Every structure is written in C-alpha cells, then in structure tokens.
C-alpha cells in the first residue's frame, strides 16, 4: 500500500542533538507541498542524550492517525540501532550514518549509507556546527530520496530563521550537500516519494497546547496560574505567547496576569480566587497535578465558583509515563475531590477543538458556576497536528453567567419576586445568582465557604438544609447536560445495531478504522463524546444500539464506567476496546477490535 504520498518515515535520534527542529522542518515542508502529514514526537523524560523518535505519516488520503509499519527509518542513534532496524517493514529502507559501518542482520530491506559525520567533519570546523548540520544533511539526502521540493523546504527554513539570513544560507548548504550525496549514490527517487498535493491545502499545523493557550486568549481569560509539568507546560507558554501579542496596550500594560505558582495547590487556588472575583481564570496541569488540586476542586464545586482547568493527560498511575499519552483521568476528574461531587468535562479531539472548546469551557464555567475541565492529552497537546484553521465568530457574545450588576441587585426582589440569596434557585435551573466583591455599599455581600451553608450563604449545621443545597447542586448537573457540546455522530448504517463510542485523540484512528471496515463491507455507527455530563443524543445513541464498543486509552474502561453510571446504559451492551501503552491509537487497532466483535472468524484469519 505504501508509495507516492503514502508511507511512514521514522527518525531515530538522540535528544538535545538538534534533530527535533530538522525533523519538524521536514514534516512542515511536506505539509506546505499540500501533502497531509502527521508527525508524532516520541521523546524521553530527559533533557539530553537519550533516544528520541519522530514518526511522520504521509497520507494523500488525509489519514492522520499513527500507522504501524515503518517504510523508512532514518537511524541516527547507535544506542537504539538494532531495534530501529528491526522496525522497518520488509522491502523498506534504512538511511544511516555510514561513517562507521555496521553489521546488518536484515537482508530484506534496502540500506542507504550516508557518511554524515565524515561529511560534516570535512565541511565545518566548529563542533557545534558539525553536530547541528548533521541533521540538515540527512534532511538534504531525503529531498533527493523522496523528491522533496527544495524551494518549499527553503521557505520553511527561512520562516523558522526569520532575521538570521546567514543561518539560512548555512542550513541550505548542509541540505545541498546531503541532497547531492543522495543523488549521486542512490537511485533517486525511491518508490516511496512525495508529490505536490491538495489534501493539506487550507489546513494549519499546530499543537493542541498552543491552540488551547490561544483559545484562552480569545475566550477573554485574564488570570492564568500554573506550575510546570509535562505535557501541560506548553499550554501556559502558548497563552503567554499569544497574550503578549494581542493583550498588550499601547502604553505597554498587559491585559492579563500570569503567575507561575509554587505548586499545583497554589495554581488552582489562584485560579479559583480569580474566578470568584469575576475574572476568567484558568490553570493547566497533568495527572499528579489533578490529584493535588482535588481538595480545591471540591471547594469550587460546593462554593460554586467558575474556573477552567486544562488536564493534558499522560500515562499514569503516579508519575507513570510523563512523556507518553493516554486517557486515564476520566474517573478522577469526573468525581474529583472527596464527598459527593460531579464535574463538567470537555473532550477536544484535535487542536482546532482545543481552541474552540476553550471559549465553550469559560462560558460553561461562568454559566454553571462550577469548575470545567478540558480533557486533552499529550498526543493532542504536544504533537503538531494537521487540522482545520481556527475560526472565530465576531458576533459571538461571551456568556458571563448570572452575575448581578449594582442595578440588577437593587431590582432583584422586584424583578424575581424573591429576595436575593447567593445560593437560591429562583429560575428553576438550579443556578443561583452571584455578586462580585465591591458591587454595592450595602447589598450583595456574602460569605463564600466550603462549610455547609443555606440558600442565603449563611453557615449551617442543619442537615436537612445541607441535603437540600447539595440536591440543588446535583440538579444543576442536569442543566449542564443541556448546555454542553453535543456529540459527533457518524451514521454509516441507519439500521445498524452495533455502535462505537469514542472521544478525544483517537478520532483519526477511529474514523480511518471505520473507513477500512466499510471498504470490507462492515458498517459501524460511531458517536464521539464531546462532553460530560452526557446529553440526550448520547442516551439515544446507546438506546438505538444493542452492542456498543467503547474505545478508550486507559486500563480500567473508565468512560464505559461513566456511561453505565451516568447514562444508565446497561452494562452488557457496553464492550471495551482499550489501549494504554502510551502510544497514539492506530486504525488497525480499531479495525481489529471491531472485527473481533462483529466477525470473529474474519478477525481470527487476520491474525
């Protein structure tokens, strides 16, 4: 199946060696040629000297999920040589640094030796340049081997080095050297090669964290508190980068406040303080941070304070696999904190949604006066995704929720027929009205607390009042179910009784897998969850299907659990397809689990 504009190439290098930018430039160049690409960066929890990989799938058809079966390996790391070579599919190619020849076990692949170290030693004196340009030399060789458009490559490098022309020249020199060596010594181009295409036209290439940070800027967030943790760090950095661009006033003031907190407890505390005081506030973290924030999340839930939390999920439990992806925090976030709690979750499936759901998250948090968690993950957050461009409807009006102005406060009793009470449900939607500090000399002040309180925010130890208040808060969750984004439903067989439910980063794999199946005559309906609580559409989909495969990236089928408990889907209906080795899901996996379910025989054969 591999061939022109359809193959997977993997770069095996050492981190801190300068390969990351070379690899990014490679992927970006194909992207600019209009070819759909999806790079996955597989990096260690370390700064320098450990193995790192960069996998680029090229797919004219536009499939961006990870794909197994490496067509070409650019093996630049002696440490991992053996494994890297073994990964190449039979008939595939291996490009390596032949300065020091190696022994090969494999005869079924084509080995392309490129004496990179030797070349660089010849051309450059400065050891730093020697090291750095190695990377551009192999990129250069690839331009010959797979027929990359040099002009486009140059434009990409130029963009990255804007203002540093002498660097551009040096880089292009390295590219040329590699290219020439390839053209002279190999039969170029190889059967796997690229050509200008249309599939990527109009798309953008960006990480989910940068998109989310930009989304927070667009949503009007002004208070950001965070503590560094992989893979969420670049979200706060993305927010800062775009805030600096769009939020600095003429006189040099910054219409935002970013605080690097001393830990996650402080980060969420700061975000809650900001939300309490009427600013759109957020924090971003990952697994361990979620655990540390859970006491505060209970406070915000019970005291009804809006706050947005981005959880860029990674492999758990504990510190686990900080540089691998996963969806293992569904339960810990849905029920974060002790006591009876339920939290609103959003599930973006790509950077474009990280951007758009940011605005939704802040609207929902302020409308519902509760924490809203955006459940992204390392794959979406830190990898470059080819995705739809960001769009913004200028007529969109932010929903600031039920916050009383001075006038509304004075007119409240008259307008509503009831005196104002901070926790009083006057509209029947279980959402009370709040006031901000400083609104009025004599009206609207109240005491916010995590201890039990009545509808007028007065401290109470009366259990019937406590029960009444938490019942109302639970009812608010029903209102939430009417406001959160509706699921994406893909009906391939209107009469079909087998369904598939998924969410988040697995979207490309699931859709491609379902396409494969459809080509094999197997039509499966799919629903992509975008939020918790579950909307009517979700319940209807579950009701309409007899067997539902829930696809998720955790060990304990956590979303399946939520569906059983919160959407009352009979468990015998719900089957699980789980992948939790930290790597992005493949379409082959989806195809196989579905076949196992609908055509066991065929699945057998396939294995």
């Amino acid at each position: 199946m591999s061939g022109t504009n359809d193959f997977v190439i993997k770069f095996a290098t050492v981190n801190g060696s300068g390969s990351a930018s070379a690899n990014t430039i490679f992927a970006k160049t194909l992207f600019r040629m209009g070819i759909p690409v999806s790079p996955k960066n597989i990096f260690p929890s370390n700064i320098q000297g450990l193995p790192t990989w960069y996998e680029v799938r090229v797919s004219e058809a536009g499939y961006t999920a990870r794909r197994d079966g490496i067509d070409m390996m650019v093996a630049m790391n002696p440490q991992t040589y053996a494994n890297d070579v073994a990964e190449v599919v039979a008939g595939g190619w291996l490009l390596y640094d032949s300065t020091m020849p190696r022994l090969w076990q494999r005869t079924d692949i084509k080995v392309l030796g490129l004496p990179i170290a030797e070349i660089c030693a010849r051309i450059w004196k400065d050891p730093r340049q020697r090291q750095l340009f190695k990377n551009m030399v192999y990129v250069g060789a690839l331009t010959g081997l797979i027929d990359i458009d040099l002009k486009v490559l140059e434009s990409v490098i130029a963009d990255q080095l804007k203002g540093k022309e002498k660097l551009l020249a040096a880089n292009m020199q390295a590219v040329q050297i590699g290219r020439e060596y390839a053209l002279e010594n190999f039969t170029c181009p190889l059967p796997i090669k690229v050509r200008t295409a249309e599939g990527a036209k109009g798309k953008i290439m960006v990480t989910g964290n940068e998109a989310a940070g930009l989304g927070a800027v667009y949503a009007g967030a002004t208070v950001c508190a965070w503590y560094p943790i992989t893979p969420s760090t670049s979200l706060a950095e993305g927010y800062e980068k775009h805030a600096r661009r769009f939020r600095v006033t003429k006189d040099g003031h910054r219409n935002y406040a970013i605080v690097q907190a001393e830990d996650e407890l402080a980060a969420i505390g700061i975000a809650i303080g900001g939300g309490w005081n009427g600013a759109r506030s957020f924090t971003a973290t990952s697994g361990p941070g979620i655990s540390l924030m859970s006491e505060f999340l209970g406070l915000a839930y019970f005291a009804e304070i809006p706050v947005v939390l981005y959880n860029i999920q990674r492999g758990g439990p504990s510190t686990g696999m900080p540089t691998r992806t996963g969806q293992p925090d569904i339960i810990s976030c849905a029920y974060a904190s002790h006591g009876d709690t339920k939290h609103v979750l959003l599930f973006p499936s790509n950077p474009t949604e990280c951007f758009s759901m940011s605005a939704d998250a802040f609207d929902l948090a302020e409308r519902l006066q509760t924490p809203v968690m955006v459940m992204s993950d390392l794959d979406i957050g830190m990898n470059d995704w080819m995705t739809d461009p960001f769009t913004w409807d200028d007529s969109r009006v932010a929903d600031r929720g039920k916050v009383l102005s001075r006038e509304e406060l004075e007119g409240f009793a008259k307008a509503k027929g009831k005196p104002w009470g901070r926790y009083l449900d006057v509209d029947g939607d279980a959402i009370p009205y709040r006031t901000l500090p400083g609104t009025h000399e004599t009206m609207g002040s109240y005491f916010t607390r995590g201890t039990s309180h009545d509808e007028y925010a007065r401290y109470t130890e009366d259990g019937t009042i406590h029960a009444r208040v938490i019942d109302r808060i639970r009812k608010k969750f029903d209102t939430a179910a009417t406001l959160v984004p509706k699921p994406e439903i893909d009906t391939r067989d209107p009469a079909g009784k087998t369904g598939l439910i998924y969410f988040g980063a697995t979207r490309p794999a699931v859709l491609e897998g379902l396409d494969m199946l459809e080509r094999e005559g197997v039509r499966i309906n799919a629903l992509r969850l975008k939020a918790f609580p579950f909307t009517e559409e979700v319940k209807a989909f579950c009701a309409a299907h007899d067997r539902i495969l829930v696809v998720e990236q955790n060990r304990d089928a956590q979303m399946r659990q939520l569906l059983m408990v919160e959407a009352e889907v009979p468990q015998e209906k719900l089957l699980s397809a789980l992948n939790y080795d930290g790597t992005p899901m493949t379409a082959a996996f989806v195809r196989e689990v579905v076949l196992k379910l609908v055509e066991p025989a065929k699945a057998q054969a396939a294995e």
Partner: protein
Amino acid sequence: MTYITKPLAHHPALPRNALDLTRRDYEGSMSTLCAGCGHDSITAAIIEACFEMDLPAHRIAKLSGIGCSSKAPTYFLGRSHGFNSVHGRMPSVTTGANMANKDLVYIGVSGDGDTASIGLGQFAHAVRRKLNMTYIVMNNGCYGLTKGQFSATNDKASPSKKGEANPFDAIDLCQMAIQLGAGFVGRSFSGDKKQLIPLIKAAISYKGFAFLDVISPCVTFNNHSASTKSFDYVRAHNHAVENKLDFVESQEEITVSYAEGTTAAVTLHDGSRLILNKLDHGHDFRDRDAAIMTIRQNANEGQVATGLLYVNETGDDLHDVLQTPDRPLNEIPVSELCPGSKALEAVNARFR
C-alpha cells in the same frame, strides 16, 4: 460565645466617620468564639482601624483559611465579601482575587496552624511575590478549632493542655517574612489596642505585602496543669472525660497597655507570662538585617519584640511586576480582550 457586636439598629448618638458610617457598619455577625478569645480583640481592632480610616467596607475583601482565627472574618465587616477557603490556602485564593481586581483592599486572616504548618509554602510564596495585601496571623501557638494541639509557632518547652512539653523550636513568622522579602512586617498583642490599631492601619495603607503577627491567647487550650494559677475544678473536671474537652470557662479578654521602649509582662489565662518589648525610635525599621537581629536578640533574652519591625517604602507589588493596567482585569469586557477573527487569519497563516 461572646457578644462583641450589638443588634444593628443604629443609635443616633453613635459617632460617624467621613463616610457617615458608624462602627456598627463595620461589624459582622455575632462571634461564636470562646469568651475572652484573643481573636475577638483583634477583630475589634480591625473594625476600629477600618472605621477610623473611613474605608468603604464593600471595597474590602476578607479572606481566610480554616480555624477559629479563620472564622473571625465572619465577625467583622459584614458589608464586605468574605471567603473562608480551605485550610492553609488563603494566600493562593487571595493572590487570584487580587489579580482579578487590584482596586479592592485585601485583608487575609489566618492562624498559626493555618500559616506555619499546612500553609507555610503558600505563605512564603505570597510574601515572595509581594502580593498587595494585609496578612494577619492570629497567633495562639495551638490548633484551637481541633482542640489544642501544638502548632509550629508554639514556644519550645511550653506544655499543652495534656501537660507534655513541646520539644521543637517555634517558627518565627516575622523573621521568615522579612527574610523572604516582605515589605512591611509588624508584631503585636491582641490586647494592646493602642499598638495594634495603628499597626493595622499602617499595614492596610501599605502597598505590597504587609504582615502582622498578632499574639492572641487561646483561653481554652492554654489552660494547662503547669500553670501557676490553675482552675482545679475545671481541670479535674475536664480530665474526667477522657480526651473530650467539656467545660470551657468564660474568661476576660487580656488587655495590656505600655509605652514604647518599655517591656510589659502579660499573664495569660494559664498564668504563664509573656514578656513584650515595645520597640521605640531606637529601632531602625528600614534596615532588614537590623530587624532580623532585633527579633533574634529579643528572643534570645526571652522577650518578644513588638511594633513595626521592618518596612520598605519603595517596593513594587505583584501588579507592577506583571505590568497590569490600572483598570482591574475583571472590568475589561471580553469583547475588548478577544482579538477577533481578523487577527485569527494572521495567526492561521503562521501555522501554514
């Protein structure tokens, strides 16, 4: 339970401040603390200070953690918004609130357990960030609300209710605050209105992090057997019901009044003595090193230095550091904060 506040019906004769408000307008709901609790004296001092400063109560936000001390904000400034957060986390919540609206006055109230134990990290980092707030620790050397365990500010060798001596050194929050870069640091005694009220006023007027460590005797749990004046019936009685505290005596508030440059020995409810040394002009409160040494030398002599310990008139606060505008962030409409679709095209272009 003490009745420091009266029904809010206004008496015409009550004195009024520049805002035409009476002290009552600065009071909160009735205190539920033990009669004679030092915290109530501090509450009264805060009320007096805000009244005298003609502060509009609704422009003040009062925040706290958890503890008897952290309940105190309920008992003052009923017209202010209050936030009784979670244990030890008042500093972070105040930081966020302050970021959202720089125009309010922020008064944070905490206890020695709330600040020196579970909250030590947040305290230290709020200091370091030069958050513009007044941070008051009602320091009683114990965990009042959970019934008298030692706190980290408890003096070494001071016996608790159950009579075991405390083996650890006390954490001196003032010294720590100065070392961490607090701009304004003072210490006083709950019963010394003459010293406390001006200190609170100065702290509130200070732009930056103002810290006040106020020694505030716990009537109920400083009543231990080693005490010189012991209440036989009371103690024997309470010992009768194993580790249940049962009978709490109503005590008089302890007050003290002494001149600058002099020392005063205060006898606590348990009979133990506390020697306060009120600093005078001799102390250069602009010199950080001197301030730390003064605190340490007094401690070496078994005394507690009180008064304004250190002030740095020329400090930036966190908003200066972050270069926020004069307009509070929570007042800028989202429409103004959102770059809009045009700008987005440029952004998209950079990702092509």
